[in-house]
């Protein structure tokens, strides 16, 4: 592949490449002229120029909230940005079911849950339940899938055990609470448990949630990651192709893109 040529970009405020950025932060000092100057100095220290401390608001006796507009001298070569992306869905509901029937020849078994202490089931329900999400059917509705949704606050070990018992093809883990990176800790714990159970690298392991992306999921040891706005059909398509690749029925480097007609 030919390397694309340089494409330098900067933030656009009022004019191309003016580099204007809006910033807000709170400093633990009472509102005063001195505090405003501190905000300006701080913003300059962060590397910005043309610093305008637009607002300094008394957020509390000893806290001042600042809104600053400034210019960043930084730029970026957009051509160099490289994002690992999950295969985009290719087939419609009916086509995919037919495809599964033909190529896989059996129902694909998936298990999903919101694990750890997390009880936010809306996301995993959106992927698995009949109803689905934003008009896109969930995996339970696909004849080609057999989907088990264990719900919320499921211990990682339980999910793995139950999935193993049914010979699952894929396990779907949802993580919504992210404070102090609890989702990462819990995800690592899941992967450790998967390794202990000997399924890592065998069963497809999918991670999803509002602060998840494919890159993060890979880093944590999952096979794929899905973020906000994921549709069930994205997941369904991904699982089918990943399975076919694993079973050697599709080349490892096959890449699918585009929406169904």
């Amino acid at each position: 592949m030919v390397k694309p040529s340089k494409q330098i970009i900067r933030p656009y405020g009022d004019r191309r490449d003016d580099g204007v950025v809006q910033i807000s932060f709170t400093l633990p000092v009472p509102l005063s002229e001195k505090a405003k100057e501190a905000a300006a100095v701080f913003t300059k220290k962060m590397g910005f120029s043309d610093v305008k401390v637009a607002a300094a608001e008394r957020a509390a006796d000893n806290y001042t909230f600042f809104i600053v507009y400034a210019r960043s001298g930084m730029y970026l070569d957009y051509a160099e940005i490289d994002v690992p992306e999950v295969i985009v869905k290719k087939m419609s509901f009916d086509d995919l079911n037919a495809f599964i029937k033909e190529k896989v020849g059996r129902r694909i078994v998936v298990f999903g849950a919101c694990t750890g202490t997390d009880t936010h089931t809306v996301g995993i329900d959106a992927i698995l339940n009949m109803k689905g999400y934003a008009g896109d059917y969930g995996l339970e509705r696909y004849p080609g899938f057999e989907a088990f949704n264990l719900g919320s606050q499921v211990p990682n070990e339980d999910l793995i055990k139950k999935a193993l018992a049914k010979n699952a093809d894929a396990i779907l883990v949802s993580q919504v609470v992210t404070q102090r990176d609890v989702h990462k800790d819990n995800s690592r714990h899941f992967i450790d448990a998967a390794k202990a159970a000997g399924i890592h690298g065998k069963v497809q392991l999918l991670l999803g949630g509002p602060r998840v992306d494919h890159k993060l999921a890979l880093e944590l040891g999952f096979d794929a990651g899905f973020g906000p706005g994921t549709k069930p059909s994205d997941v369904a398509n991904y699982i089918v192709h990943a399975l076919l690749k694993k079973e050697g029925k599709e080349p490892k480097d096959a890449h699918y893109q585009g929406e169904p007609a």
Partner: protein
Amino acid sequence: MPGPFIDDAQIAHARTLAEEIVNPIFDLIRRNTTVSIERTVLRFFGISGAGARGVPLANLMVDKLKAAGVLNRGAAYWYGRALHLGAKSPLEAVERLTALPTDKLGPLSPEVEQNLRAEVRAEARSALEDMKSRLAARDALRQQFPMSPAPHKYVIVATGNIYDDVDQARAAAQAGADVIAVIRSTAQSLLDYVPHGATTEGYGGTYATQENFRIMREALDEESIKLKRYIQLTNYSSGLCMSEIAFCAAYEKLDMLLNDAMYGILFRDINMRRTFIDQYFSRRICALAGIIINTGEDNYITTADAYDAAHTVIASQFINECFAKRAGLKDWQLGIGHSYEIDPYRDDTLLLELSQAMLVRRCFPDAPLKYMPPTKHKETDIFFSHAYDVMADLVAIWTKQGIQLLGMMTEAMHTPLLADRFVALKSANYIHRAARGIDEEFTVREDGKIANRARDVFGQAMKLLQECRDEGMVAAIGKGHFGDVKREETGGKGLDGVMEKAPDYFNPFLEILEAT
């Protein structure tokens, strides 16, 4: 002004249905007690310490009695027995009791029994007097520094560390908050004990402990005095320790509690028998302590669709009101929960939200109500999110909400930053100032979208109430009528903590609370 929309007779009928729905559950409540209730009894007697590895003494004692199969006579009874064995202090009573061999737990002579009960009753009375005097101090402070007018602006703190929470709560109070809610660490609902002492490590919230309550209330008392404006404190009394937390909250002079069995059943998979029983005792405590309860119907429409499931909120509110009234709570204590949660990409959402909020006002004219801001459809675009909250501020002042949770512009990302609360408070103040009295300015047309929608939702709610009455509440929950979540009567956590009361079951607190 919220129109009439609905006939008074219809609303009265909804209340009758709620009574009928609640009746069988009250049979259950009367017949049973739970480990949580019994632990609460012990806490009332001053058993608030913890043993090795932080296990509360009340838990040690109740577990022991339960293992011995005698808890069904009531922890108070055994507490009395322990005193009779010569215990000089509650702590010693625990020690004596937990040291007793099981065969020493047989009955006493009727006379001794009677004396014992009288003594324990007297002690219970004095424990309640002690609590009342603590509450009187709170009420005096409230009187001295009147609260700002409703809607009371309610914001959460949730750092996980009580000392950071204190910093943030003070800052929020200084920025104009009226109510501080300390959010609990995730899954505390599922702990069958109340953690002990000051805590600094929680996720998505800070553990609810008696000491954390005390620390925060103390800080807010200071702020109230400084700001000359009483700042309320609230926490969560749901999950497996409803009544214990209600006790801790009352003792530490909290002002409000999120208190709702349905929340635990649906969203925490707590066993329904367990939590209905716990809820009753916890509400009795709230009634005594002048604590406002907040119910959790707003949560239903985070899992179900707010438009489609609007009637489930109304139906549940009637049921919840009935539960509350029967536990002795007064109208002013009913922070009945609802929220601004219809998908903002639909048409007419302001009309629909007004309709729903007006309907709730119409049904519960004397309750303060607790109004939740948008959460489920919040976007990470903080500017849009802020605009969306502003409309909830408007509906709140329009429909005279007593307690208004302020929406946070970062709702879809993280628990609020210090500045997020400031931003929300500043805008809410503006909207309240700008629109106060708007309800008096307009008459809702009885043939408009708002009125028709209100009637439609109310009609659906009546059908659901009828179904709950005919088939029972358990069946309705089993069908997923509330929050699209299905639960079984014997499923969920904590059923093993429920036991049938012995014929001579003894709980002087319940007696006294029910008598007042």
